[in-house]
């Protein structure tokens, strides 16, 4: 029984297919065990981009897309979370179960099922065929990872397997795009119901496994040889000493590359914004509109967009680590820390994805069956350094930390950045410890993590990830941040005195900043930073846009800022102690409306988001206060 009965089971439906077109009538669900390649196949079929990783448990919600059949008809494809059986225990399994049995309110029962199994581990994966075939829906059994099966000399007789299962079978490679036409043929064809054979008692796992073994034997299934390279690589990555060294090396490499090789790229983007801004300014006549466009939007939104190259590089690295299967090993290495603070290993996957963004991370806690563990994980996820904090950290580190070499391959900026990432992690671990030894004490559930074989990340998958991240990043810049910038610009231009906008200090924005100044003075922030702090509660990186816009509008600092050089300009308003305080404030504070909303949804109430917001704000304030007073 799922321990999460009290949580809301309603997932967000993402009908991100074509808008405006007539919705297709046919619906087909994709199901299979975790990490069998459902989502890769889904992307192949629909051209949609789902996040895929070589990591079990990536899909926690159902996603829906449209596949265009060769004859022009269209079909809804529903991508379901990975399950080992149809007995629901955690919420993601519940979703898969409910969709397939037609109990999910907003999604009608699918007309057919694509059952995706990993051909390199067919005997065990076939266990899932029993409950799926017993649903009686037309089913195509898809054996994925055909390329790996062949390479490692495995074999299966497809005709015999189809006869045994009473359902059509296709051997494909979703990654390589091999055999996809067979799936389209099935979807376009008559989609026969499976001929019901003798099926085992579904509740009895040993019987199911025995049944699967028999079917495999009759289909002359020969399991592939053990993956040689996976064993070799594990000998390195899970080596008691070398494993940890490699782990540290990977982390250093990521940040060192970002600082040394990507920052020049950022300067290029900065320069583009500066010259294009100057050009627009020279073309447009002097007016309030020009001021809004240049000072509010160009300088504000522009100063965030310049961080795009770094954010993309970070995600390229994360993508390589995830797709290759290394992250599963990192999870094993890091598990002891998790165990010490009382968190189960399953919390690791959400926490890893919180490095990108806390929102999907909090949603992926649905894989955790234990409700208390789940809430503890939700509570600590926003401490992980998300990609919205990253540009803020970059800005302050580039502005305040000199680029000296500590070791030949390690600069002070890299050390500072790794330190900030570690700070968030330590805070998360500390919070988990407090929660798990007090209000959220619970019994432990076993830690189980499947180690996928190592695979080369495909260029296509990495490219899609980067494209996705760019869209997310630019969309935020073009919506939330743009909106805040327009509001800020208006607030900075009223009240008019003598038909002219006031000086920034006397404007509404300036007054708001001055009002909160007494509260933030002890942290080393003045009223300008104060305005940035307020706007950054909409989204963290808005701080950068706000400072960019403020320096653009404020006559005092405009001289320093004519080249979009935020790094120089910000020195006027922050001492070194203030900069450290600001970093700590951003590391701890919950400045993200989306996260608050998703925590409310996932915990079904305002209690936990309020507790979390209060706790994180107090931590941020106290942390920044101490930092400012110690460093001065």
């Amino acid at each position, binding site marked *: 029984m799922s321990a999460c009965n009290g949580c809301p089971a309603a997932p967000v439906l993402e009908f991100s297919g074509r808008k405006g077109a007539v919705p297709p009538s046919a619906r087909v669900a994709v199901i299979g065990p975790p990490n069998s390649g459902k989502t890769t196949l889904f992307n192949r079929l629909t051209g949609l981009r789902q996040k895929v990783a070589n990591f079990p448990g990536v899909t926690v919600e159902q996603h829906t897309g449209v596949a265009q059949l060769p004859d022009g008809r269209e079909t809804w494809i529903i991508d379901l979370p990975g399950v*080992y059986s149809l007995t629901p*225990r955690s919420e993601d399994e519940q979703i898969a179960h409910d969709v397939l049995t037609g109990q999910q309110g907003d999604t009608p029962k699918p007309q057919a099922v694509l059952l995706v199994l990993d051909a390199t581990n067919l005997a065990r994966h076939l266990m899932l065929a029993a409950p799926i075939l017993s649903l009686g829906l037309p089913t195509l059994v898809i054996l994925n990872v055909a390329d790996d099966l062949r390479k490692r000399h495995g074999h299966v007789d497809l005709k015999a397997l189809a006869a045994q299962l009473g359902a059509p079978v296709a051997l494909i490679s979703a990654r390589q795009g091999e055999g996809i036409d067979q799936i389209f043929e099935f979807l376009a064809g008559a989609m026969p119901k499976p001929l019901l054979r003798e099926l085992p008692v579904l509740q009895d796992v040993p019987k199911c496994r025995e049944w699967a073994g028999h079917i495999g034997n009759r289909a002359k299934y020969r399991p592939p040889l053990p993956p040689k390279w996976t064993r070799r690589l594990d000998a390195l990555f899970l080596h008691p000493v070398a*494993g940890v060294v490699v782990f540290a090396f990977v982390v250093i490499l990521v940040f060192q590359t970002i600082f040394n090789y990507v920052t020049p790229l950022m300067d290029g983007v900065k320069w583009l914004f500066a010259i294009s801004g100057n050009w627009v300014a020279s073309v447009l006549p002097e007016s309030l509109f020009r001021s809004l466009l240049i000072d509010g939007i160009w300088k504000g939104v522009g100063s965030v967009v310049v961080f795009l190259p770094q954010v993309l590089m970070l995600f390229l690295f994360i993508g390589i680590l995830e797709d290759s299967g290394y992250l599963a090993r990192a999870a*094993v290495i890091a*598990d002891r820390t998790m165990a010490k603070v009382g968190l189960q290993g399953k919390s690791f996957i959400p926490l890893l994805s919180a490095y990108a963004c806390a929102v999907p991370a909090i949603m992926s806690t649905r894989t955790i069956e234990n409700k208390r563990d789940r809430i503890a994980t939700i509570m600590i996820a926003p401490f992980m350094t998300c990609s919205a904090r990253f540009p803020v950290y970059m800005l302050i580190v580039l502005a305040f930390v000199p680029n000296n070499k500590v070791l030949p391959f390690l600069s002070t900026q890299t050390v500072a950045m790794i330190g900030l990432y570690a700070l968030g992690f330590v805070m998360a671990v500390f919070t988990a410890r407090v929660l798990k030894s007090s209000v959220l004490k619970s019994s432990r559930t*076993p830690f*189980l993590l*499947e180690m996928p074989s190592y695979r080369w990340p495909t260029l296509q998958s990495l490219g899609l990830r980067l494209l996705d991240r760019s869209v997310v990043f630019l969309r935020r810049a073009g919506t939330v941040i743009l909106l805040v910038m327009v509001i800020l610009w208006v607030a900075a231009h009223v009240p008019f005195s003598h038909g002219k906008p006031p000086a920034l200090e006397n404007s509404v924005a300036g007054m708001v900043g001055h009002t909160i100044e007494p509260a933030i003075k002890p942290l080393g922030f003045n009223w300008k930073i104060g305005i940035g702090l307020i706007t950054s509660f909409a989204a963290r990186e808005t701080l950068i846009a706000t400072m960019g816009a403020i320096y653009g509008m404020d006559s005092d600092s405009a001289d320093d800022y004519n080249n979009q050089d935020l790094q120089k300009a910000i020195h006027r308003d922050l001492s070194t102690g203030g900069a450290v305080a600001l970093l700590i404030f951003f590391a701890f504070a919950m400045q993200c409306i989306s996260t608050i909303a998703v925590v409310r949804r996932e915990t079904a109430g305002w209690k936990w988001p309020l507790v979390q917001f209060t706790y994180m704000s107090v931590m941020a304030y106290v942390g920044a206060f101490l930092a400012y007073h110690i460093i001065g």
Partner: protein
Amino acid sequence: MARKKSKKRSAPLDKDFRRPHTESMLQLSSNNVTQPGATLVDLRRGDSATLDCIDLTGEDARRLMELGFLPGTEITAGRSAPGGDPRVFQVDGSEIALRRETARLLKIRFPRKSKNS
């Protein structure tokens, strides 16, 4: 900790389970003897044994079984994180990492000549 001791089984050896490797027990396993109390924790890297039973409650045991930890299955111990915990086990064609606290609840036997390293 959720170490639910089974009521039927007395657990006099429970203290020994904390030891990383109970050498003495393995040495007894020369003649197809089912070891009373040997668990997955007692396997060293490269050692294999047959799973006898899972000392866990319904749901947790079921999950383990779905991943291949079925009584009667051969399990080989693989590499581990530094410190030996968690350890990766090769079972039924896949590799699954288990914490020591879980591995301790999976009782094993050595049906054939055990590789007593």
